[in-house]
């Protein structure tokens, strides 16, 4: 009987766990290690952040699901891996520290036959002085953060109703952030709620981003075929900004967040600042900080992980200029090149490079979106790695047959622009593939038939439908596996 240990129970890790259990039944052991007791449908945190949903609508307890599915659940965080085993035992091991009330602080060494690192990001608020809900700005990265943010937002709306004028800044809290789409969503949901409250005229809404131009979204922008023309996501997004009177500060790296001022540097080297009354700024991501040691106890962290803390996988990490980037640089199996039983999926794998053109300011500051790894590809990675491990266990082979490169996979991104069945809307986009492949699609890098964008009420309905569908799926209710990732 083999033991497969999955670190993390987010979209990627939880998907991997459910598929593994479905494929392997009780023949092999599936263990999930997660410091959080709950699963969170992160895309809907935006709505929690403006008070349209509660935390209970976007989270549920993991333990009962895993109990029902006979998946061994440890509420703990992983700290160290020994991919070669240790002096006493050559079997791979991971050290975990329990975070549940009963065993808080206790450590345990879990041996594994396969290890899937699906730990997601460390929310690196510390990268920018003053950033984060413990300091001067709000966040929607977790359901709890979003709930507190909605309280602060409600106070702003109350002040606006009293006739006060306010400035709301939404965006990126560092030059190397990802999740530009999420910040866009939050900005436009805020704008929508201000209009619904009848106070829009008293509020200035500003999107502060590290994108070079609007519509980049960390994927180097998109080209859409519309009415016989190839238009681009820059114009499309600018149009929405104009329509809704949202201002923008672009190409910005936030240096510091004071209680009422955000200080930033821009690509031309100029320094700027904006006074605010409410700021929701996302943090940059890095790996959770796992360490790795070889059998003799030597630190091999730098060989196993990239400098940003994400796991090196089967990607081409050689340094190359943007013009030489290729779809082939991107991983397919998410397998460590050093250990064939170690995988990194979702946000936990180290991308070979960004998707958007990298830029630095004239002072050398990186001001460039990191590549997004959104829900859809993360779920697919989880499923494919699970299926490959199951295949290997059944056939005793050393590789699995399936691949899940972001350069051959598409994604749908529904950026909510207001949560209401009648008055809401969303910018609904599809892109294929996620990572542009200029060899296959020389004109735009993507298939223009499958790369589309439209704004309308139906986008909101789709996002709401996906909310219910994916929570149903994650709860492993009957037929869950019929809902595609």
């Amino acid at each position, binding site marked *: 009987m083999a033991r497969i240990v999955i670190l993390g129970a987010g979209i990627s890790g939880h998907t991997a766990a459910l598929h593994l259990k479905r494929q392997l039944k009780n023949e092999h052991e599936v263990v999930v290690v997660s410091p959080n007791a709950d699963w969170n449908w992160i895309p809907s945190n935006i709505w929690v952040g403006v008070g349209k949903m509660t935390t209970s609508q976007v989270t549920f307890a993991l333990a009962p699901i895993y109990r029902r599915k006979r998946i061994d659940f440890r509420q703990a965080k992983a700290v160290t891996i020994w991919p070669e085993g240790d002096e006493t035992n050559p079997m791979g091991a991971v050290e975990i520290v329990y975070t549940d009330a009963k065993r808080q602080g206790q450590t345990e060494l879990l041996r594994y036959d396969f290890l899937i690192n699906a730990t997601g990001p460390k929310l690196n608020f510390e990268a920018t002085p003053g950033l984060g809900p413990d300091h001067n700005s709000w966040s929607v990265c977790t359901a709890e953060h979003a709930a507190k943010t909605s309280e602060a937002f409600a106070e702003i709306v109350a002040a606006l109703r009293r006739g006060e004028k306010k400035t709301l800044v939404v965006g990126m809290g560092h030059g190397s952030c990802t999740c530009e789409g999420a910040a866009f969503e939050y900005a436009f949901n805020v704008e929508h709620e201000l209009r619904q409250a009848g106070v829009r005229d008293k509020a200035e809404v500003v999107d502060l981003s590290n994108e070079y*131009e*609007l519509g980049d979204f960390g994927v180097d922008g998109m080209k859409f075929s519309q009415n016989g023309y190839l238009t681009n996501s*820059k*114009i499309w997004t*600018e*149009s929405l*900004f*104009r*329509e809704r009177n949202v*201002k*923008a*500060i*672009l*190409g910005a790296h936030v240096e510091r967040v004071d209680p009422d001022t955000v200080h930033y540097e*821009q*690509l*031309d080297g*100029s320094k700027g600042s904006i006074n605010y009354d409410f700021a929701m700024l996302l943090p940059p991501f890095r790996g959770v900080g796992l360490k790795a040691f070889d059998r003799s106890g030597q630190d091999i962290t730098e060989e196993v992980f990239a400098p940003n803390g994400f796991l090196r996988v089967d990607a081409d990490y050689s340094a190359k200029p943007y013009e030489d980037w290729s779809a082939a640089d991107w991983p397919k199996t998410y397998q460590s090149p050093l250990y064939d039983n170690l995988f990194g999926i979702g946000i936990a794998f180290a991308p070979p490079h960004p998707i958007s053109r990298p830029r630095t300011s004239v002072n050398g500051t990186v001001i460039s979106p990191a590549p997004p790894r959104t829900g*859809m590809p993360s779920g*697919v990675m989880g499923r494919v790695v699970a299926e490959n491990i199951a295949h290997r266990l059944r056939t005793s082979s050393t590789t699995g047959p399936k691949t899940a490169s972001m350069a*051959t*996979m*598409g994604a*749908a991104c529904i950026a909510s622009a207001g949560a209401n069945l009648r*008055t809401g*809307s969303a910018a*609904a986009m*599809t892109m*294929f*593939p996620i990572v542009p492949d200029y060899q296959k699609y020389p004109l735009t890098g993507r298939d223009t038939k*499958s790369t*589309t964008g*439209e*704004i*309308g*009420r*139906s*986008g909101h*309905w*789709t996002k709401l*439908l996906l909310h219910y569908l994916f929570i149903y799926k994650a709860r492993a209710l009957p037929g869950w596996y019929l809902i*595609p*990732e």
Partner: protein
Amino acid sequence: MDNVNQDIANAPLPTRRTLKTRQSLAYQLLRFALFNVRMLRMVGKGHE
């Protein structure tokens, strides 16, 4: 870098007809169906 707000100010605005179709129940029901079919096709394509 205020070019961006200049670009925003010069961006095309949707026509009245476009604004109506964005909210039209019948039209949006059709767009909902088509978008979800497109999404499923794309998911299937990526899973091959």
